[in-house]
């Protein structure tokens, strides 16, 4: 059986690097556009991957974002080496944030990130180990 077409690319995300912050999600948006994904789905995928990327930039020391596209779905997996999330249910609540004043001053840390990712995704899973890092898997169905 011929294997299903699959596009795959991995991006490195550097924690606290505000110069390149958001570039991976912008590249992802461009790739989805070239593949011919519907604009409304591109928008959802772009918002969710941007929020996930910014979480790595804001809170972790480093991480990776992996994009997989098949004719059935788009999957964005974000894995970081960061502080981890002690209470995921709490972190998922809108408005809950552990952001420092510094982060808030830059206009981030409103506590909408994770809930925004979930809202825009068709499927969303989160695994986190305190002191080690967090893995997000965000899926969009075509």
């Amino acid at each position: 059986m011929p294997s299903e077409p699959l596009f795959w690319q991995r991006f490195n995300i550097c924690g606290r690097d505000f110069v390149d912050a958001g570039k991976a999600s912008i590249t992802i948006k461009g790739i989805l556009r070239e593949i011919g994904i519907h604009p409304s789905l591109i928008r959802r995928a772009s918002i969710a991957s941007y929020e996930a990327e910014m979480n790595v930039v804001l809170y972790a020391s480093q991480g990776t974002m992996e994009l997989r596209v098949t004719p059935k779905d788009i999957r964005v997996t974000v894995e970081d080496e960061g502080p981890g999330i002690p209470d995921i249910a709490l972190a998922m609540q809108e408005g809950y944030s552990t952001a420092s004043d510094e982060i808030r001053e830059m206009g981030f840390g409103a506590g909408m990130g994770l809930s925004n990712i979930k809202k825009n995704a068709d499927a969303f899973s989160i695994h986190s180990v305190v002191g080690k890092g967090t893995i997000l898997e965000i899926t969009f169905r075509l």
Partner: protein
Amino acid sequence: MRHGKAEILEDRCIDCGECARACRHNAIIPQTSSFTEFSEFKYTVALVSPVLYGQFRKEVLPSTILAGVRKIGFDDACDVACASEAVSAAIDEHLASYRGPLPLLSPFCPTIVRLIQARYPSLIDLLVPIDSPMEIAAREVRNKKMKELGLRRDEIGVIYLTPCPAKMVAIKYPPRKRDSHIDGAIAISDIYRPLLSAISEVNDGGHEAEESVTGMGLGWPVLGGQVSSLRAENSLAVGGLGDVERILDEIEHGRLGDIQFVECHACAQGCCGGPLTVGDPYVSRGTILSLVARFGEAPCQDRGKIRELYQKRYFSLPGKISSRPFAPLDRDIGKAIEKRKRIQETHEGLPQINCGACGAPTCLSFAEDVVLGRALLEDCVVVTAKQARTTADAPSGPAGDPQALTL
């Protein structure tokens, strides 16, 4: 570049004119209209944007320039600055009553509208639905001339003196399905020489006291000119395609919602630095700003009247702007994925230094050309040089054997 000639991928062109600006040999000339095309009209009116005033020394006043335009073959010349002030006031009215998502975007740079249609379709609804100063000025001057001269609509030719090819395309193919009020456009660079000599012959009646051109609209073609004529406190002016894209990405990511209005220009300095202008953009900017300081304080519009007209939808644009995405790599999503994958693999084998020697602007766009059959991998000088070295090395003895080189 293919075979020594620049090739434009039509479906990706957003009429920014950067190619004409970038070409050192001036080999790319955007197609604008010429005088002869308008000979069929009984009466012609040139629409003059303040960009034109920025092309001369600041001592040359707008009234003199308008007189010059009348000398070079137009029956009349009409200034757009006053219509710009009216549009600013209409945007104020719109912002005051608008309750939807923010920020709203200025719709007056046709290249930016095209960019949004192609790459940011989710932002289309943020474009302010108010007509451009050039269209409003055209509508008004045509009606005025019809009454004054007793001419029919089609006997009057209204011609815009344009700083960029994008405005010309917008006149011919408006993004909203309706007809433009303008019959054609002539590049400022095309009329500059005759205008310069005409102006030197104008008996300088352009005393400040007689200056007919006033209003806050004078500053419109300068980056930040729209924003500074508005009452909105939280607004932003962005110039240059790269910076505009960055801001549009931010907006698409749901940021900048605290800003009311964003003025966007494809050209870094705004329209005064358009690709079909003649003067240096920075000098033009200075000239226009000095005119604003001199004449721009005096309003030429009555706010109350504008409010009334706004409520009567005088400034409103009918219809919706549709999205016009660039064609995907393939209509079939599976094939598009395969192609994107091959582009990626090809790109990984390229030097990634974007030298441009192959004729493509970047290694990534070259990889796309290779996969889509528009170019051959051998067109890359680095790949070819590497291949030549491998072939030269292959039949020889052990690597580094000096004997092998003498073959």
